[in-house]
């Protein structure tokens, strides 16, 4: 007996599964022991930016914000604003030289980091290839944040090189809109420094993971951590979703007090195909490829229980007519499978015997089956 209230007010299948997986991960000792720590999660949060393009794009956004701030400052009284800010501890005339020197050091450091990371990745890949350990290498790449770190390093290096010329500030200066009393460039330099520090910390984390990866016991731990945090929640959710969807056939017509198993008077099936009549009770037309994404089981249950009660009344009448009535068991089934793309006019519900569904019930059922567009693979 599945308590669909755990899937929210409408008994969402996905919400129900999410909750189950969350509870399982919280209560399972093996999962608890292998969860990422909070600093680790923060680090992964930052590196969820993941790609070179995104890193650079994000930096460009920050840069544009700084440029916008400079323009606004010039427009609305730079001198007044400068009075509110702490004085710059170096002469403004030497600022560009200072910046150039520091940027040079940063580029040097960044190039050093990048070469360490690149060589490590190359070495591990080579060793792993020799040992036929493709999946282990993939786990290593993921757990050491290798791709993200390389992307971040390359992005920062690109940014540092470009910012040797300060392109945005140069354009501002040419337009005569650059600030003379407030130092905006050092702010960006600060951003570079913070970014470099994060990269440095991550390289430390990367090297530590790399060294641990070559030890058997630590490699097992890394593998377990990867499974608990990355694949297991997704994989378990997917299995549970499919299983619960199909096994709902057994329990959805039963109330809490009734025994388990299929209802012996009326039957419902999800994701099953029978000898289907020509006309579907409910169908929908999709112009693009879609996939059944979620089912609001609470709503489906409400509709089906109403239908069952009406059907059983009808069945009683029919039983009297025929003396037996065993062959007219009301049956309703939903042939749609989870995760199977459909397109065009698609039957959602078929029915054999039993009472007819009302318009409102059909409307609710249509609402309960949520589809999501998927990419055409043709």
């Amino acid at each position: 007996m599945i308590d669909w209230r755990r899937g929210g007010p409408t008994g969402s299948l996905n919400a129900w599964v999410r909750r189950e997986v969350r509870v399982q991960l919280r209560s399972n000792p093996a999962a608890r022991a292998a969860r990422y720590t909070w600093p680790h999660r923060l680090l992964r949060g930052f590196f969820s930016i993941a790609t070179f393009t995104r890193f650079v794009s994000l930096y460009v956004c920050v840069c544009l914000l700084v440029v916008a701030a400079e323009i606004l400052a010039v427009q609305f009284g730079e001198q007044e604003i400068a009075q509110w800010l702490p004085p710059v501890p170096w002469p403004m005339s030497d600022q560009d030289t200072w910046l150039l020197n520091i940027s040079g050091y940063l580029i040097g450091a960044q190039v050093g980091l990048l070469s360490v990371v690149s060589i490590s990745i190359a070495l591990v890949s080579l060793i792993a290839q020799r040992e036929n350990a493709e999946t282990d290498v993939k786990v290593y790449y993921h757990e050491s944040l290798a791709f993200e770190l390389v992307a971040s390093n390359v992005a920062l290096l690109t940014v540092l090189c470009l910012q040797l010329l300060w392109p945005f500030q140069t354009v501002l200066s040419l337009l005569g809109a650059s600030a003379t009393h407030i130092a905006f460039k050092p702010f960006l330099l600060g951003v570079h420094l913070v970014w470099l520090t994060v990269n440095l910390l991550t390289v430390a984390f990367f090297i530590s993971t790399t060294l641990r990866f070559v030890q058997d016991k630590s490699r097992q731990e890394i593998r377990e951590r990867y499974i608990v945090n990355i694949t297991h929640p997704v994989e378990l959710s997917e299995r549970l979703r499919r299983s619960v969807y199909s096994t709902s056939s057994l329990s959805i017509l039963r109330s809490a007090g009734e025994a388990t198993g299929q209802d012996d008077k009326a039957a419902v099936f999800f994701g099953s195909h029978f000898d289907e009549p020509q006309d579907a009770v409910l169908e929908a037309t999709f112009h693009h490829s879609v996939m059944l994404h979620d089912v609001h089981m609470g709503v489906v249950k409400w509709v089906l229980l109403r239908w069952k009660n009406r059907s059983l009344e009808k069945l009683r009448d029919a039983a009297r007519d025929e003396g037996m009535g065993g062959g007219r068991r009301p049956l309703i089934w939903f042939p749609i499978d989870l995760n199977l793309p459909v397109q065009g006019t698609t039957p959602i519900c078929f029915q054999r015997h039993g009472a007819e569904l009302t318009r409102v019930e059909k409307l609710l059922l249509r609402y309960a089956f949520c589809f999501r567009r998927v990419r055409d693979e043709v």
Partner: protein
Amino acid sequence: MKSDFPEPDDIFEELAEKVATAIERGKVVSFKRSLEEMERFHQFLLALNSARSEDGSQFNYAQISGGLWNEPHRTWIRHYRRLFALAADQITENDEFISTLAHVPHHLFSFSRTYARTPEITSAVLDLGPMMVHRLQGWRSKRTTVQVPLGGEAKPKLDLAPSEARAYANTLPSLIGAWEALVRYAPLTFEWNKLRRQKKVPERWTAYAESWPFFWAHLTNTAYCLAACVWNEDEAGASAYLDALLSWRSALRHELDAEHFYTPYHRFLYPTMFRQSWDEVEGRVAILVPQRSVHVSPEAVFSSLLTSAHNDVILLTAQLFLFWTVSQKQLTDIGARVANRLLQLRPAEHGDEPPSTRPLSLRSRFLDMMRFEVAPVLEGETSYAADLDHYIQQLDNMTERHVVPGRIYTPSTLHGRGGLMSSEIAILAASVPMTGDDGLRAYMAQLSANEALWPAADDSIRRLLNHLQRILQSLETGASSIGEGVKYVLNAEYPESLPVLSNILKSVVDDVEAARRSRLRERAIDQQKLLDLSHLFEKRLLEEPLDFPFFEAFQVVRTEDSGGGTVLDVPISNVQKGQLTTPPMDYDLADFAPSLARSADDILWRTVWGNFLQKPRQIHGLDMTIQNVAFWEKVSTLIPQVQPNSILVVSISSEGSVLRKSLYGLSKVSAGIKIESVPTKSAKRNYIATVNGIDVFGASFPAGVSWLFSAEMLQQIVFEKLPDTNLYAAIKYVPADEETGVLRLLAKPKLDWRDTPIFELKFLPSQEDAD
């Protein structure tokens, strides 16, 4: 790249690949390290999927396949298959690989990490044993040759080359040792010592019950390994696993035998008791254990159940092997030879020495076999007998011919113990003494006299009698396979045994049946059962809407007054008394009570129709057919007199057929006649069509006769209380003899009719009627 995350299966496969590479390269140290890594990963996955359900029971998410072909935990186990095959290939060079792999199940159970050991997970892990044996047999099959001595007759002797045979024989003990270690260390795995010290009796029983799937899977898999060796005609393997099976129980002797208890009825204890609470088990044991016996502990019952299960598996395995030989499924007689040793409990290491123990008597053999038939059936149709059927099905499945996957085929193998009857009879016949019956008849008479001893009371006795009747039928038909089976079991001809066995069994059946009949005669009818049936009958008549042909809108009422009603008394003869006793002493007829209730409609309808037929009718002769417009015009002139809701009833076979043909456009209709089928009326019984607004129904009338009357003529049915009861409808049982009787369905209805006429119209049958 981001979406290309490896799944646990990918990682598992790669770990297995590392182990496989080490085996192929012959690197023992690397192999052991890689295998340990793989085992730990396997355990981690099982632990990660472990959970507790809301009722506190263990559960493992790895059992959820989620629509995939295999459950994840089964997929993980399958990775070992390839390793066993590779290690088997290395037996002659280095047997350490296969010996180490043989410990995998033990490692999976005994590493420090704990996980939910559900019966399914346990069974899957223990399936590694048979999996290894199949790979070994695969290796052996590739290397066996047909050896024909020079100048000798051709004979189907399959054998390994001497060096390989020696290597194989040297490896077997370590494999068996690893397999037996699972049971030997089970007390540690299940923490029995801690259990005994710290837990109360009911909790101890629950803990033993939870460990039962492990022992059952191990026991049946040991027998499966033996069967795999026998089927592949592997003498060395069969000897090794025969010893393992025979000595299976001895591994736990030091743990459990201190708590022994004696009962002459130990065969009536079944593993289905593990699904019961300790209180229920104690209650059952108290019936079976003589009063003078000491206090019975959970350990003692557990020990007794293990011993019984062990004996059952040995006996059934022997029956199956005998069946294989007798039905000529194998080239050699290895099956019969191993069966013989199993029946004599003689390990292979004793060679051809005579058995140390005395052969079992006919009585013991009979009781051992009877035990399967009388096992109780629990809710959901689960029973120990069904488990044994499944066990036999699994074992015999290895003899199935090659089939194309996905194709529908009829299995040629056994579905259960039913197919082993000839072996069963042969074993019984081989135990028949030269004189007497080993006290079987007297013992059975004593048993049958006490119904409470039997696991499912009279139901058990009925099943046993049925089974014995089938055995007697088989003995009468005299299948040659039985005689041949006896020869194999005894290693000698014993043709006299079959008629003697038949006579003994006949007398047993007579005695048991006589005791049962005597009990049936003494047992009174359960009045509560009759009352329940009466209430069901009454409810159907008075509370649920009655559906009669032709008549509608009548009321069903009950009255306290009496007089006016006629007692309706319908007998149902030849009802078995056993149906109405508690506990029931006859087979539960499916739907007995509901079908009785359903017949209420028909019974009452016959009364109503009989009463209606006695009413006067006004006859009108018409010189026309039903297809003439004039007929319907005449009918319409009579309709105002038969209001409300007038209907016309015609012959269903002649006029009914004519009207239906007209309705479906298969015959012409005269102008002025409009035939239609009204959807709202089509559900009514016997409705044919509506002609010119008149509803026409069919009945078994002669052609050319119809009745016109009001469908609401029957106004109400008044039920009066039956004399001397408080019921409006009742069922009574009147004994016809001591075992059968008559059920009388009683009611006292009074029919109120409206005072409207009934017209009987006689007309000419139409030409089409003659056709």
